[in-house]
């Protein structure tokens, strides 16, 4: 098992390195002149040349790549082109906000998804199951931002329960902060819940087909006893995997939801600077999103390996 774990860990590391290459290639080798993009079509050749010199665009790509990666390893992400601010400092503040949002979304959605998954297996093909799958299908068929505006329109504008934008700052108490992020958390929960619940349902149903479940049913246990006592323990490994995969999915959902609710987090930072064509910021923020995603995916696989008894006790 140790060998498998080490293999998977090194694969994760390799993917991290490869993603730095990909992000760098995506912004550097592709046709499209960054200097031209910043200054616009009417820029003079001299101004373009000066900017290229300043940004180091005239150096060979390999040199630029290694100085960029070297900087990241020292915690230096460079400075933003548009306002000259230190990227590491800006990201540190915003990353905390994003993690705060994602944390509450995860805390609510994970237990809810597992409960609903169990419920829909218990009442399989009856109305609770059908209701749950209809609602989850509807949320999957809509992009995150539209669900966001639906929730905003209903709860903030029509019912006036919470503010429609989620501005938070350090001076607010925890309760005030939670009130401010209520809407984005609800939207994220909706988005992740649908996927997580469907996959949990599939994982438990898969286990329900085993012979020992039939034995448990035949010896007279009730439906709930069978699910909680026999199916669930064996479905935990796939469920944990599902949860981790969906937390990775949350990373992407957060980008859109932050823009909808004007929340000062990483997602908005990234999108803002993509439209300003601020390449160093996009590279840094993109890399952070990619690393979190890779980390969570690797963690999901590691947990799957550890929680599999066949791998834990090899013959």
């Amino acid at each position, binding site marked *: 098992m140790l060998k498998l774990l080490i293999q998977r860990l090194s694969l994760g590391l390799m993917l991290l390195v490869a993603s730095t290459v990909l992000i760098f290639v995506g912004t550097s080798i592709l046709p499209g002149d960054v200097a031209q993009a910043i200054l616009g079509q009417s820029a003079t050749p001299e101004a373009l040349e000066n900017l290229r010199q300043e940004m180091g665009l005239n150096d060979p790509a390999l040199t630029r790549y290694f100085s960029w990666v070297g900087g990241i390893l020292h915690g230096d992400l460079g400075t933003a082109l548009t306002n000259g601010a230190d990227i590491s400092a800006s990201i540190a503040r915003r990353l905390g906000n994003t993690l705060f949002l994602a944390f509450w979304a995860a805390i609510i959605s994970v237990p809810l998804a597992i409960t609903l998954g169990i419920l829909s297996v218990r009442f399989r093909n009856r109305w609770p199951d059908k209701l749950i799958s209809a609602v989850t299908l509807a949320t999957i068929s809509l992009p995150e931002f539209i669900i966001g*505006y639906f929730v905003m329109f209903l709860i903030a504008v029509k019912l006036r329960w919470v503010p429609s934008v989620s501005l938070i700052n350090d001076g607010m108490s925890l309760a005030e902060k939670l009130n401010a992020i209520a809407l984005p958390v609800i939207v994220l929960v909706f988005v992740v819940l649908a996927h997580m619940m469907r996959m949990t349902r599939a994982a438990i149903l898969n286990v329900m087909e085993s012979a020992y479940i039939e034995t448990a049913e035949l010896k007279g246990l009730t439906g709930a006893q069978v699910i909680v006592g026999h199916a669930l323990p064996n479905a935990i490994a796939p469920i944990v995997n599902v949860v981790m995969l969906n937390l990775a999915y949350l990373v992407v959902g957060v980008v859109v939801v932050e823009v909808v609710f004007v929340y000062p987090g990483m997602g908005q930072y990234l999108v803002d600077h993509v439209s300003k064509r601020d390449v160093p910021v996009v590279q840094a923020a993109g890399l952070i999103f990619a690393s979190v995603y890779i980390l969570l995916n690797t963690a999901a696989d590691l947990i799957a390996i550890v929680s599999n008894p066949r791998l834990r006790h090899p013959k």
Partner: protein
Amino acid sequence: MIRTLRKIPASALIGLTITALYFVIAVFAPLIAPYGLGEVVGKVWEPASEKFWLGTDNIGRDLLTRMIYGGRTTIFIATAATILSFTVGSVLAFMAVVIGGWFDVLMSRFVDLIMAIPGLIFALVILSVVPASITVLIMVMAFLDATRVYRLSRSVAESIYVMDYIEVAKLRGEKTGWIVTREILPNALSPLVSELGLRFIFMVLYLSTLSFLGLGIQPPSTDWGAIVKENSDGLVYGIPAALAPAIAIATLAISVNLVADWVLSLTTSLKGGRQ
């Protein structure tokens, strides 16, 4: 063939009708739309009336017209990207299975790498450098989506490739091109066709998200995502104009899903699978 067509279930029929309706509206948009795309015809955010069926938008353009033209852009780009991604993804996957060896390893590891980065983030990184023209959008969306098509097609083709009839074809001395197009493709078609519907919907959602973030379709053109973005300020004042695209996207997504489900059940039952 005619008998299977006669047995279309009601759900698939509804799905087919609505999907076809959307495509017809997309093709004939300039004939159907009551006003011009950029024409300012009324006051800002007028409510729905006889003159403006869905009301007007943030600068007084007819919302129905915007929705029709926006649907045209959305459906056109999503269709083009889906076709491109399917062609590239499935051809490369079939080649990987047939050629095998280093080509298979190289392609599959490359796909793993692309899929290790979230698609939206990757698209944002690329769009920060390359201007978002329609061609670029189609290419980026197709490229990122082709990885998923590749994975599915590869696993389907792999299970077909070990069948006896492939062995027979090889012994008969058929060329690689024949084996891919005449032996693997017809047998891989049914799972691929139902996936086609899902990928198309995914493309619609993806393009809408990019446009909503202001990085997809640029003015003066519009699409469903851009309409949400333009009218989102009105929501705070209780004007639901920004929610019109939601209904369009949801009905399109559900109808395409109904058709895809039907195609899948049809092909599996033809093969003797469960009905």
